[in-house]
């Protein structure tokens, strides 16, 4: 254990916070409070919890539709994320985006994106703007291994390396793109070799080990800022639940899921802290109670939230209210 106690505890707390929040979302979805599509992050918490501390407030984050954990880890309040899930106007996207489109521009969190690979060009663009305005900061772009099959991935990797743009490509390889295993969609499943074909600095890391993720992310961001080049980081991880609520998960065996659960990022890290005498059961229980309280408050905040009046339907389509003219 190379981490000081409080930063280790912070990593653990962040992962537990994400886990309990996602479990509450599953419960509220089956109760019909959350509708539409819901993609949970349970199992992959170490990636978001590990990468975010390696970014500064000035860096930017572009994520995917499985972005609750990233939003919470980046600092978007549990209240505003849950309210957004309910579609209330107190939500972080004013109730317009829902689970797949969480935004908080003050935190430079540029949202979820429901199109596989759709966020990559945006991240490249943000980095291009930083480079042209001589701002030395990183744009972290999360995407799943499914996006690697999209043309946009290859176009963006090439463009970023060609123009030496400060993008951190974070590929969360959880082995399944919706219902298709990686081996059935990629000719070469060793994704980090993709980066080599664009001469891009790259590394791979165990996405279930929050300490390893944190170290790899720090290495990547410092390289980017030092050399002003893009960086590709593959994080091998696994989602414990269905792709979305709910799919029957016919594409993988229950035993495989159980095996990966033994690598649960929270359980393994908690055990490591206890082993290093940095954590005991009462402190863990206190952490759990604290998180449970935060999640309960988020649910109450969302329940108490209000519906945006229908009269404002066309607000925020354009900056100036020419939308009314279009519809008239």
């Amino acid at each position, binding site marked *: 254990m190379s981490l000081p106690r409080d930063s280790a505890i912070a990593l653990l707390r962040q992962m537990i916070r994400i886990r309990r929040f996602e479990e509450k979302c599953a419960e509220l979805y089956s109760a019909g409070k959350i509708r539409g599509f819901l993609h949970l992050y349970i199992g992959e918490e170490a990636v978001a919890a590990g990468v975010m501390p390696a970014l500064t407030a000035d860096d930017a984050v572009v994520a995917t539709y499985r972005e609750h954990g990233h939003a919470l880890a980046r600092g978007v309040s549990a209240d505003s994320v849950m309210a957004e899930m309910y579609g209330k106007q107190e939500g972080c996207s004013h109730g317009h985006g829902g689970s797949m489109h969480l935004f908080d521009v003050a935190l430079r969190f540029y949202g979820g994106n429901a199109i596989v690979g759709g966020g990559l*060009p945006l991240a490249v663009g943000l980095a291009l703007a930083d480079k042209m305005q001589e701002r030395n900061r990183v744009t972290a772009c999360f995407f799943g291994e499914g996006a690697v099959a999209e043309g946009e991935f290859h176009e963006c990797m090439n463009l970023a390396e060609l123009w030496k743009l400060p993008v951190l490509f974070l590929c969360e390889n959880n082995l399944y793109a919706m219902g298709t295993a990686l081996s059935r969609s990629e000719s070469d499943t060793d994704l980090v070799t993709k980066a080599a074909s664009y001469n891009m600095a790259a590394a791979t890391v165990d996405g279930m080990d929050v300490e390893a993720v944190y170290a790899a992310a720090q290495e990547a961001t410092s390289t980017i800022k030092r050399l002003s080049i893009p960086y590709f980081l593959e994080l091998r991880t696994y989602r414990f639940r269905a792709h979305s609520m709910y799919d029957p998960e016919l594409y993988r065996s229950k035993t495989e899921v159980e095996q990966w659960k033994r690598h649960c990022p929270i359980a393994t890290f908690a055990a490591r802290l206890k082993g290093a005498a940095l954590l005991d059961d009462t402190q863990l229980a206190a952490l759990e109670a604290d998180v449970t309280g935060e999640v309960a408050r988020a649910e109450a905040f969302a329940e108490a939230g209000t519906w945006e009046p229908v009269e404002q339907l066309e607000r*925020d389509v354009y900056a100036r209210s020419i939308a009314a003219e279009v519809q008239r």
Partner: protein
Amino acid sequence: MNLHAPAAKIRTTYREALRMALREAMQRDPRVFLMGEDVGRYGGSYAVSKGLLEEFGEERIRDTPLSESAFVGAGIGAAIGGMRPIVEIMTVNFSLLALDQIVNNAATLRHMSGGQLSVPVVIRMATGGGRQLAAQHSHSLEGWYAHVPGLRVLAPATLEDARGMLWTALQDPDPVIIFEHALLYNLEGELDADAGAVEIDHAAVRRAGSDITLITYGGSLQKALQAADQLAGDGCSAEVIDLRTLRPLDTDTILASVAKTHRAVVIDEGWKSVGLSAEVSARIMERAFYELDAPVARICSREVPMPYARHLEQAALPQVQAIVQAAREVLHRA
């Protein structure tokens, strides 16, 4: 329109007017930069950006790989990041590869983020057929883009608009698509020496008339004006409306004209079914029904993939004679 004393005139082309607009924008605002395939070293596939690389350098005149989704998306991202990018997609035909970025990101981010994001990007593309480039290189898809809330869509048809729309579009916090009909680049004409930015919210009456209203935009304006000349020959006074903005449509100008003439023909190089002409016609029916002395006629491209052979392409495209014939029928004088 600049209303002060009539300035000296210069003789120039639509292409030159576009270049003047680009140079002015680049000079006035350091955040502005041009990005697209062959815009730098090659000087632009329609030579619009010739000379700009030498003047502004590779940082601000960026040749891109053939990655429409990436570089259009990057333009959108850079706009969010504080730049004022001008992205040139060689033609609307290649914009199909970037539709996801334009429709799912550019047009949607403001609303989807609850008003937090602005996307002040300008995307220019050539459009239209008539040069025997066959089906894949002759599309007129302005109607697709004019369908999407969150986008503004412009069609400069005159030298003055080619010169003046870009700067106003760049000031708009929302994404603006500018369609330049490929046959207009060589259009010659006069332009005020001190011509500058123009407004982009209204249509323009290019020719006043009282018996019938011809409504069109972009590459079809010249044909509508020629049709109006012919109609004047046999005693019919045709008014020609240049839409200039395809979204939002300047419905009031259209309705005011129809209220005067009681008859309308819409000319649109796109296909007729589910097209821009259908939208204009529907609005006239909905809000000027009792002004109509005849159904609104539409003259559009024939609903075929654009054929290569010249005679077939000319038969497929809307032509002056078809406009005149439609006008006569609408006037019960066929």
